[in-house]
């Protein structure tokens, strides 16, 4: 159990930009629910230390903190960074439910099932973030096609009054895009299972879409 006081202290440091908060949980868990302004740095058995060290070096080696929902993962991440010459200012094992219970804010991206999307499709703007070669398998009728890499430049054109359903092939890239947009205050949901689930369920697509 994380102490509410340590969570509040951490939030104060993250909010004011004094520390960079690295979240070691798997990407899925992070994109689902995370501390505003935190960075997803999922612990991996290979290459975690050097890649995070490079990220921190690029940012001029700011003070940083590590968070995970598991002590073993946190210890492994800390050790890998230590081997790369980086020592966190703080580490905390906590669950996002504890964070919310302490009254602290989070960025959430709910999952949306393909069944729900199909029946409620007039409630959403569907944004397909796959690469152009993937459109051959079919695109959801009416979807915007914005390959993942183009999304940051296109956010100006998005309508903050609408609700976006982000879709990709399996629901992984769309999760990253959805949490990127959620961080900026957009109302987004992630289509769980992506086009794989949409096609398997037999829902309609337009063939060979060119934008």
């Amino acid at each position, binding site marked *: 159990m994380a102490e509410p006081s340590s969570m509040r202290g951490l939030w104060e440091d993250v909010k004011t930009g004094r520390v960079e908060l690295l979240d*070691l949980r798997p990407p*899925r868990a992070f994109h689902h629910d995370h501390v505003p302004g935190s960075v997803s740095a999922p*612990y991996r*058995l290979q290459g975690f230390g050097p890649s995070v060290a490079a990220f921190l070096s690029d940012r001029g080696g700011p003070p940083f903190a590590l968070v995970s*929902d*598991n002590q*073993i*993962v946190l210890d492994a991440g800390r050790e890998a960074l230590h081997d790369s010459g980086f020592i966190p200012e703080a580490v905390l094992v906590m669950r996002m439910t504890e964070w919310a219970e302490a009254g602290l804010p989070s960025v959430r991206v709910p*999952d949306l099932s393909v069944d729900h999307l199909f029946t409620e499709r007039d409630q959403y703007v569907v944004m397909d973030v796959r690469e152009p070669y993937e459109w051959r398998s079919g695109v959801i009728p009416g979807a915007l096609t914005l390959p993942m890499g183009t999304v940051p430049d296109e956010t100006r054109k998005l309508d903050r009054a609408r609700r976006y359903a982000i879709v990709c092939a399996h629901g992984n890239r769309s999760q990253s895009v959805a949490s990127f947009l959620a961080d900026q205050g957009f109302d987004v949901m992630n289509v769980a299972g992506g086009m794989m689930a949409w096609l398997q369920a037999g829902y309609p697509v337009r063939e060979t879409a060119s934008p």
Partner: protein
Amino acid sequence: MIWASVQDTMTGCSSYLVGDELTGQALVVDPLHSKTAAHYVLMAQDLGLSIAYVVDTHTHADHESAARELSEAAQATLALSHRAPVHFAYAPLKEGDRFHLGSVEVEVWEMPGHTPDSLCLVLRDLDRGGEPWLVMTGDVLFVGDVGRPDLGESSEAAVKEAARAQFRSLDRLMELPDYVEVYPAHFGASHCGGLYMSRKYCSTIGYERRYNTLLQARDPDRFVAEQLKFLKPPPENARKVRALNLGAAGSS
């Protein structure tokens, strides 16, 4: 379905990690103390999963289980047969129970024989189809062999009764279609099997149906006689290991 296995080649033990892409939930079956609980936590994390359930297919007598330690480290539900004679709290599994990790469905079969609390777990990927894809057979069925009947109670009558129960459990496994994959808890030179155990750690129902010597005995008496022919001394420390896994007072 996300699938990974962890083997200890020294002891011939297998353990399995199954996950679901959408929910990120994972189940670990028969985790090995020799591999450490941390190994499974980090492996799940590496696959982008969080461990939600830990199951032992039965109370092991040959190796120390990491199930309790892992369920604590991962804050996961520890689930065992309702017949497990252990001295700690767990979620009881009964015949026919089904639980889900997203689209992965786990069905519990009670399969007494090797031990009274032996389970097989029949897995389906509901995204792909309603038929079973694989079965984790614990110490009921091995590749080329079956689980020995004498590690619970060792009196002759008890061993014979256990062998008879094992016959019925194997008969039931053979109701599964040929293509269903078989993942036992042991392979190679493990103490829990007999003469014919393969060093290969997985098989299919169809292959075992055709080529597993012990499955060729089609009546219970012949099967029991076959099993008794291959009995061997219990593994070293069996009593102590079993007591450790039961969480018995003073066992550690």
